[in-house]
């Protein structure tokens, strides 16, 4: 019986071996050879040849056709030192009918010794791989989607009933940065629905309380706290640089202001509102769908616009709506699925009915029918009956 070393030596006699410099030349020619890394996952993730595809030797027979379907194509295999790739080349050539196979001599070790470039792919740490394993198993998220989530910056307007569940679940999902705008402190009456806060944090600023809950779930999330009231003087500065805004605002003037700022900055807004047992949800994606002003060109008079603080709300309802918002955020970040842009969802919790309405872009919209650069500071948040509205609300 031959020793392992002898077997490898014999196999190397039966296959073609190429020098790293020839592989480099082949790559630079761009003549269509496929370079395949046959090492293990963790080795590939550390560094690999530029443009290499990864087919671990243990999965060679089952996965090579997915990577190289044309058996007449030139295939160059490599590993760490040239042993595993020689064995793999032999398998492709003798058992799978690949016609033009070679193994790179000396593997990636010799390649690096020669000073040739390698690609260091982004990846997850072992802890992240474990934490997000259920995302990685969903093809619509996967590694690519998880990396997008980790890079994402999401701004939550309010850490109240809608913002609380959104903050907790988006933190759990691995959104890299969560900004929170809220100038309120935790009150006992909030705890019926605002699940990011707790009994022992009554009197604590909501941004601090939410940060504690977020870090209890996922310490890696970067929390940016804005303990201020959102207004015309700070909205552009706060919102700039965020990828998605989650809107849980409780008054019309700020909603119009937010709309105009988000159109100028071209940041999609996931909007929800609640009252009693009913909720509304939509996504306002500037220039891809309607904006808030396309849907509601003008607010109702103050007597027809009660805020939920005064009117009361089923505590679970903002939980439902805040989580529907979170799903929209994840889809906007990862690009999976269809968002609610151009659609309005009405949820009636008492009857358990969902009604969906179409929302069209208004070609004459005072804001989103124009280029972002044309919208001036003076126009932001202004609506036709602004003076009367504010007098009524006061």
């Amino acid at each position, binding site marked *: 019986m031959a020793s392992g070393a002898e077997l490898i030596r014999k196999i190397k006699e039966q296959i073609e071996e190429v020098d790293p410099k020839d592989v480099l030349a082949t790559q630079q020619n761009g003549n269509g050879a496929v370079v395949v890394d046959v090492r293990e996952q963790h080795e590939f993730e550390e560094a690999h040849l530029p443009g290499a595809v990864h087919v671990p030797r243990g999965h060679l027979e089952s996965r090579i056709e997915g990577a190289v379907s044309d058996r007449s194509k030139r295939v160059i295999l490599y590993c760490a030192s040239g042993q595993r790739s020689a064995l793999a080349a032999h398998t492709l050539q003798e058992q799978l009918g690949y016609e033009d196979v070679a193994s790179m001599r000396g593997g990636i070790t010799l390649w690096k010794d020669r000073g040739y470039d390698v690609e260091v792919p982004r990846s997850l740490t072992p802890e992240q791989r474990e934490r997000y394993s259920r995302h990685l198993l969903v093809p619509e998220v996967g590694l690519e989607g998880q990396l997008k989530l980790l890079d994402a910056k999401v701004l939550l307007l309010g850490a*109240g009933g809608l913002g609380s569940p959104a903050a907790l679940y988006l933190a759990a999902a691995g959104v890299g940065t969560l900004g929170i705008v809220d100038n309120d402190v935790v009150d006992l009456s909030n705890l019926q629905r*605002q699940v990011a806060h707790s009994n022992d944090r009554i009197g604590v600023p909501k941004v601090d309380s939410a940060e504690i809950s977020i870090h209890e779930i996922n310490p890696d999330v970067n929390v940016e706290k804005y303990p201020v009231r959102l207004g015309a003087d700070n909205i552009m500065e706060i919102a700039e640089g965020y990828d998605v805004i989650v809107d849980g605002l409780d008054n019309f003037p700020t909603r119009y202001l937010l709309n105009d700022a988000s159109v100028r900055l071209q940041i999609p807004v996931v909007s929800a509102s*609640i009252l009693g047992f009913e909720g509304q949800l939509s996504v306002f994606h500037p220039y891809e769908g309607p904006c808030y002003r396309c849907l509601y060109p003008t607010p109702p008079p103050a007597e027809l616009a009660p805020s939920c*603080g005064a009117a009361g*709300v089923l505590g679970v309802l903002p939980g439902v709506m805040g989580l529907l918002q979170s799903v929209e955020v994840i889809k906007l970040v990862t690009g999976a699925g269809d968002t609610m842009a151009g659609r309005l969802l009405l949820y009636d919790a008492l*009857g358990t009915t969902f009604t969906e309405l*179409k929302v*069209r872009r208004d070609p004459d919209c005072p804001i989103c029918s124009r280029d972002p650069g044309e919208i001036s500071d003076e126009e932001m948040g202004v609506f036709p009956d602004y003076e009367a509205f504010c007098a009524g609300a006061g």
Partner: protein
Amino acid sequence: MATIKIPPVLRGSVGGEKELQASGGNVGEVLRELASQHPATESQLFSEDGELNRYVNVYLNDEDVRVLDGLDTSVLDGDTVVILPAMAGGAR
């Protein structure tokens, strides 16, 4: 007959009902019928010149009547008219 879905802010004006039936050949007639049954809704739906208030969105089934024929949009038996004023209940 069409079904009219009443939003939370208008329910006080219709005796707490979530849905009402009203007849009419177009959206305007259906809403006028609603206003005659429940006069308190009239000023909330219509401005003094008889036009629909701008802050009230009205949908025939799932389509905004503004992209159809407005108040002249034909209503068939069994259609649903959704009244939707803007809602700003956040959750502070």
